[in-house]
């Protein structure tokens, strides 16, 4: 087990190095930088002074070396475009917003998806199955951005049931202010409903036709117990192992939803930082997102071992 964690950590370090380097040079390759908007109209001497202060006048490789070294020391630096903003502030102010949005989407979307998946599998080739299949295909094909806009215009605009923009703040950051969170949560959750309904239905159908389900029936196991003990249990393997990735994606991947609903989360701030060529924030967020993904991959491995006895990724004796 220790060996596994060490191996994953080494992988994480290598991946982070490659990802941050690529991000840095890509940013450097785009015309303009964090200061161009503010300094374009300044006299040349003043412009030089501002650049010298921020260090942006140095050659690319030197800036790369400085950035990487300070990141190694855990210092991501202060935002250039948004003075006073640091990564620790991002983690404290922006991350909770995205965490709540992501978790709400997952908690709403996955159970619903699983429910419809089971229904569709049990009532295969009936109107229930057909409805679930068509709807999930539709929901999977429409980006959550479009869903968000549709929800906004209908439930927010036309019916006026929910506010269109914003997110609970202050004491309601974690709990409360539900009306504001409903539309963005639903917009993101619908994709999960569709994905998980399809996933569980397909894996259940595989298992429904398998010999060991017949064996269970031949043993006289009642049908509900066949479903709970033999079918769902085995069909859940691909579902469970996919959960960490979905959670990670939900937290980090709501960029569009955060943008159209003006939710001050890490996704929206990331896009803003990118537009501003705000190197410290972009680099800091990149590290954070990458770490989340890689962490969820590790969790996936662990879950695989826990739920499927046939899989031994690592020698158990080491654990």
């Amino acid at each position: 087990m220790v060996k596994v964690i060490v191996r994953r950590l080494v992988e994480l370090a290598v991946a982070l190095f490659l990802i941050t380097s690529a991000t840095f040079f890509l940013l450097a390759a785009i015309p303009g930088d964090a200061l161009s908007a503010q300094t374009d109209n300044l006299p040349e001497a003043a412009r030089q002074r501002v650049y010298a202060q921020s260090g942006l006048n140095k050659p690319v490789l030197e800036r790369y070396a400085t950035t990487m070294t300070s990141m190694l020391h855990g210092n991501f630096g202060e935002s250039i475009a948004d003075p006073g903003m640091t990564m620790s502030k991002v983690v404290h102010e922006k991350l909770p917003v995205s965490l709540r949005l992501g978790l709400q989407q997952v908690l709403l979307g996955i159970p619903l998806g699983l429910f419809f998946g089971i229904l569709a599998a049990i009532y295969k080739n009936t109107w229930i199955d057909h409805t679930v299949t068509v709807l999930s295909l539709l929901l999977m094909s429409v980006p959550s951005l479009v869903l968000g806009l549709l929800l906004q215009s209908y439930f927010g605009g036309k019916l006026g049931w929910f506010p269109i923009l914003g997110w609970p703040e202050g004491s309601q950051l974690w709990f409360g202010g539900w009306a504001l969170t409903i539309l963005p949560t639903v917009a993101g959750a619908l994709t999960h409903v569709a994905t998980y309904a399809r996933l569980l239905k397909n894996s259940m159908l595989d298992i429904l036709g398998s010999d060991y389900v017949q064996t269970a029936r031949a043993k006289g196991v009642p049908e509900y117990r066949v479903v709970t003990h033999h079918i769902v249990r085995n069909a859940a393997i691909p579902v469970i192992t996919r959960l960490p990735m979905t959670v990670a994606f939900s937290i980090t991947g709501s960029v569009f939803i955060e943008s159209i609903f003006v939710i001050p989360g890490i996704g929206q701030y990331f896009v803003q930082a990118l537009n501003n060529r705000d190197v410290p924030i972009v680099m800091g967020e990149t590290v954070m997102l990458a770490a989340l993904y890689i962490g969820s991959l590790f969790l996936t491995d662990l879950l695989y071992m826990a739920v499927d006895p046939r899989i031994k990724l690592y020698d158990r004796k080491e654990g």
Partner: protein
Amino acid sequence: MAEEIIRIRDLHVTFTETSGHVYAVRGVDLTLNHGETLAIVGESGSGKSVTTKALLGLLPTNARVTAETLSYQGQELQQLRRRDYDQLRGRELALIFQDPLSALNPTMRIGKQLGEVLVVHEHLKKAALQARVAAALTSVGLGDAPELARKYPHELSGGQRQRVVIAMALIAHPQVLVADEPTTALDVTLQAQVLALIKAQKTQQDLSILFITHDLGVVANIADRVAIMYAGQIVECGTAEEIFYHPQHPYTWALLEAVPDDSRADETLFSLPGTPPDLHQEPVGDAFAPRNPYALGIDFREAPPRTQLTATHWVRSWLLDPQAPAYEPPAAIQARWHEYAKMKEAAHD
């Protein structure tokens, strides 16, 4: 006459598929008597598995089952409610599947899979449950039962798995064991062991067995009576002796000639040309006629009637019709007839 335990009369099973209907079983009559082993022999697709699945109520929903009688110990099964069928399966009628790996749930421990039968039927718990599971595993020759019960199917060898499957079928002491090609997926040495095990369990537990196979060689070892199936019908049925030494149907002849035999080791093994008919249409006349070198003109027009030869032996073939022309079976079959005559004489003396 022994007590009838299973009675099947005029069983028809038709599957509805997107490509149309498949007439898988077309009028099967079967009787299983208490304490005997009846082998159902036929090629793949002859309907032998479908027949037993119909008996156990395990056919998918696109199968239509009709029968004049389909009964277990006098109890008609066709109108049985699902819950009552569940009560019967595993406790009274048990089934062993062909492939011992896919027949076991890959994510459930062996002990739990065996124990489930008792949990469902006898509501046993903990210690009592464990003791019965261990006893069942020991009775099929698996040592160190507690250790084995904690393992998963993929951690066992093929032979161990088949023993586990047999133990699981017999753990609730059923009356009838349906063995659906239990030796087909095993190599020859294991086949012999598993057959011996089934025979031993039969005497110990006073079982009646329906043994399905495509291999007559295996049948000789285990069966009291044999039913030969072709294209969804039983074409010949008799005691093992009658089928092996006094066979009357050309299809039975072909099957017998296809069994490897030491005394004819230097000859090329006989193989029946052609394939079984496509059952998307109900065959006209005798379904075997196109592959049958002994086929008569009438075989292609009209299905042969059932001819009863002895109390136990009957055949569906026009060859036994009084108006049929004279014919001569293959030499190897004539030799068998000859031996049969000698056996009968010896029995008279």
